[in-house]
């Protein structure tokens, strides 16, 4: 396998192909959970790959190529989400549910699966993004705050609300199961 070889210099074309084959599902999943939009998720991965290819001379061999691209893809997804919905990360003083899903979100939900889609649907954009970055992507609060142009207090609050809503969804699922 290419990745286990102790190579020197920037990652090769073959290494890129290998990580696309083995790890692109993870990148796509992360981007889809952040954007809830298949086109944006697809573009985010595409942008990340090209950006990684163009900057491959800056890649540090002590890191893993797939995690490096993963991080770039998540950043690209956040950037595309911000561009497609200006003001999406503005903090709210009150608790709101996510708006009714658009046709594109409904299509993305089909891929996300019933339980996950319904859970994410109840969250506002900022709650979903903060929760995904914190709990699925393991970002630090400070990093999330910097990325969405806010402060850690707002991020904490968004995550708190997200967890609360997900607990409600869990309770509903348990009732459905009975």
């Amino acid at each position, binding site marked *: 396998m290419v990745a286990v070889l102790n190579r020197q210099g920037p990652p090769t074309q073959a290494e890129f192909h290998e990580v696309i084959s083995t790890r692109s*599902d993870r990148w796509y999943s992360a981007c889809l959970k952040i954007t809830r939009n298949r086109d944006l998720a697809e573009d985010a*991965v595409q942008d990340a790959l090209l950006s990684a290819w163009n900057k491959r001379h800056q890649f540090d061999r002590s890191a893993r190529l797939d995690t490096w691209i993963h991080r770039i893809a998540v950043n690209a997804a956040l950037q595309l989400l911000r561009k497609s919905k200006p003001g999406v990360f503005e903090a709210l003083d009150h608790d709101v549910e996510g708006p009714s899903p658009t046709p594109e979100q409904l299509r993305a939900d089909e891929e996300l699966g019933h339980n996950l889609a319904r859970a994410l649907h109840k969250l506002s954009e900022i709650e979903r993004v903060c929760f995904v970055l914190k709990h699925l992507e393991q970002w630090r609060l400070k990093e999330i705050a910097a990325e969405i142009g806010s402060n850690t207090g707002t991020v904490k609050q968004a995550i708190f609300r997200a967890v609360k809503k997900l607990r409600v969804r869990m309770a509903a699922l348990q009732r459905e199961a009975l």
Partner: protein
Amino acid sequence: MNDETNKEFAALNLDREIKAPSHLKQRWHDSIDLAARQEVREQQQAARSFSVGSFFWGAAITAALAIGIAIGVFVTDKPELAEPDSYVVQDRSAAFDRVMQVHLRDTRNDIANLPIETAADRTTLVLQIIQQNRLFEQAAEHNDADNLARVLRAFEPILLQLAASDIAPEDAETLRDQLAFQLKVMLTKLERSTSKETTTT
């Protein structure tokens, strides 16, 4: 996801991995190949002197494309075709079809004259064709010619194979013939639809 959160929300499958569709993965693979080839081409081009011929060729195609897009954007009186055709969409202008015909004819000529034996020259030329093809694909989308855009998009994987530097000459020849044939079919259908339109108007 951390263990605590994972346990609490296990039923929601929050960390479920979603499979990327295979056509997307193929596109991502292709984009790396294309970027790598473009790099090689740029290095080759930097080493070469400025070519007046290729400058005019590029400028002419770009001008034709700009006219095509402008026609698509500004012409509102879109004639309808008498009979549907797999490549032809009824609500676009005849002028756009003509611009597209010019592109297809040029591409067919370029493909027919493609050097099979010298891989470097072939790669450079095919990459130029791919770039032009993408521009026309976008123009087709602008003009609501989704079928046409789809067919142009379908050319790209074949063109990428043809651009590969390690392809055997006989395989390159087969691909070239296949492309030339498909271009001819598409061109014939477009010419037929344009002439029908001219007769009916």
